């Protein structure tokens, strides 16, 4: 009999969004990975089917919700799946991308059905590869990179005699361990104390919008409550647009060197830049919360088991404008370190506590910005493929649960990419342009002179 398991906290996050926004689209995850080379599609199909057996998170299915709306996950044994070949090679690259983008908008509707599909791809300009579309509860972006590398390792093994790839960790075993950790009462109480203590210390959080205080004022009028500290979430018009801004290799190196020389992680430098911008446009507000995604992957098993391990926690800091840039960065780092230690907690419980204490109106939030920093580039780390040009592209699922979601990643040329996903019902491209412009100015001013106070930096930029 197939064992059924509850969802992990990371999976529950996606499941909640599916329920709140009433579409599985918010949990879609799609990528195309291709090489500028002839590929043996018959062999590639065989490797993908072998991957389904090796990387069992690809097979995860979900039960029908019970009377409480709870679902369970399980891993069915599988025969080979049908992997069709899609030939878009007659199109331009832009047309092919647009076609794949449409596939990324598709939903997996139903219970007890496969939540992952794969197509073999013939793309323009002699690129060939595969397109993967799945539910985010099966895998996160780190999991996908591991999967792509493993599929290509299998391919080069069978095609060129490369060494057979190392075994991947068993998804089910890691899942059982995660659920056991989550069920550790002593650990749970420690985590709960950490998050509750923050509310005891600082009280109710205060919303800060990337468009300034008028957004909170509008919400206060709507709710007829001049003391309201949260604002409404857009839940009807979910269409998302994406705008990317590049940072060249040379300035990116300046940031990386700064982080290395000051034992600071890039996430914390970015969080400081973002919160300083929010402070700037919200009359010097000092109490600011940004939702930051972390990927709970530390051990080898966690890295190679697949699954969805990203989870977001509120990074709330109260930093005075008199604080110098470097001290501010360390204050954020300190907060993030505490959060990491308590990251087995289900973030929904944090918000339940906030709602309970402050009677926060339903469908409102304290955060306008979300951050994901991805230190790991999508790159085929395979010596047999290293000189072959590669084209990999993530496709937005087209439905945003967040007003503005920034993903920062490193590019192969040593630069960085700042990718803004924003709800078009709330923001226009100009908003992201302004945000990114000031984010860069704030961070580089601070990096050039970390002794400057945050207020001085705000005045300078």
């Amino acid at each position, binding site marked *: 009999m197939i064992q059924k398991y509850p969802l992990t906290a990371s999976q529950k996050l996606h499941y909640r969004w599916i329920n709140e926004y009433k579409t599985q689209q918010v949990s879609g995850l799609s990528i195309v990975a291709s090489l500028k080379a002839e590929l043996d599609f018959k062999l590639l199909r065989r490797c993908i089917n072998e991957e389904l057996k090796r990387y069992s998170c690809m097979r995860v299915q979900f039960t029908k919700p019970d009377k409480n709306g709870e679902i369970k996950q399980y891993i069915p044994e599988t025969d080979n799946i049908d992997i069709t070949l899609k030939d878009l090679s007659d199109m331009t690259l832009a047309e092919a991308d647009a076609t794949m983008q449409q596939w990324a908008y598709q939903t997996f509707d139903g219970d007890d059905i496969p939540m992952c599909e794969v197509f073999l791809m013939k793309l323009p300009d002699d690129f060939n590869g595969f397109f993967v579309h799945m539910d985010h509860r099966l895998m996160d972006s780190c999991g996908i990179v591991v999967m792509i590398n493993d599929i290509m390792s299998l391919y080069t093994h069978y095609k060129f005699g490369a060494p057979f790839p190392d075994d991947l960790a068993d998804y089910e075993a890691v899942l059982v361990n995660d659920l056991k950790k989550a069920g550790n009462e002593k650990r749970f109480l420690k985590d709960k104390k950490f998050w509750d203590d923050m509310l005891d210390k600082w009280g109710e959080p205060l919303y800060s919008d990337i468009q300034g205080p008028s957004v909170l004022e509008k919400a206060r009028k709507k709710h007829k409550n001049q003391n309201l500290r949260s604002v409404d979430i857009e839940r009807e018009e979910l269409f998302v647009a994406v705008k990317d801004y590049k940072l060249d290799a040379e300035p990116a190196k300046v940031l990386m060197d700064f982080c290395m020389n000051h034992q600071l992680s890039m996430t914390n430098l970015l969080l400081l830049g973002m919160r300083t911008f929010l402070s700037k446009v919200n009359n010097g507000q000092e109490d600011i919360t940004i939702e930051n995604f972390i990927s709970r992957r530390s*051990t080898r098993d966690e890295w190679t088991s697949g699954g969805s391990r990203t989870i977001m926690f509120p990074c709330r800091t109260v930093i005075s404008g008199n604080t110098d840039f470097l001290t501010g960065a360390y204050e954020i*780092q300190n907060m993030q*370190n505490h959060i990491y*230690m308590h*990251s087995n907690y289900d973030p929904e419980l944090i918000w339940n506590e906030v709602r309970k204490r402050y009677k926060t109106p339903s469908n409102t939030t304290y955060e306008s910005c979300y951050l994901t920093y991805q230190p790991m580039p999508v790159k085929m780390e395979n010596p047999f493929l290293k000189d072959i040009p590669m084209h990999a592209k993530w496709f937005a699922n087209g439905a945003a649960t967040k007003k503005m979601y920034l993903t920062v990643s490193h590019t192969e040329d040593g630069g960085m990419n700042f990718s803004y996903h924003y709800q078009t019902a709330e923001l226009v491209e100009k908003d992201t342009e302004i945000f990114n412009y000031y984010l860069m100015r704030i961070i580089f001013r601070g990096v050039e002179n970390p002794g400057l106070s945050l207020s001085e930096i705000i005045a300078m930029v």
Partner: protein
Amino acid sequence: MVKERKFKEIISQYCQVQPENITNSSRFREDLGFSSLDFMSFLGELEDEFDIELEEDKIVNIRTIEEALSLINALKEAG
């Protein structure tokens, strides 16, 4: 006393270094490549594994295996 071998086996799950190659002077971040998340997750695991309570504001200053081992043994003895 916490068994050094067991301690290093846990560490090796977080890095690409075999337990026998981890010395007491090895530094978590510089030598073993721990990220902040790795380090804090590791400390959480130590709390659960050895049934100890770490003071979060102090533990972030731990740099080496020896420092971590000493702290845990002190906590075990005190507890």
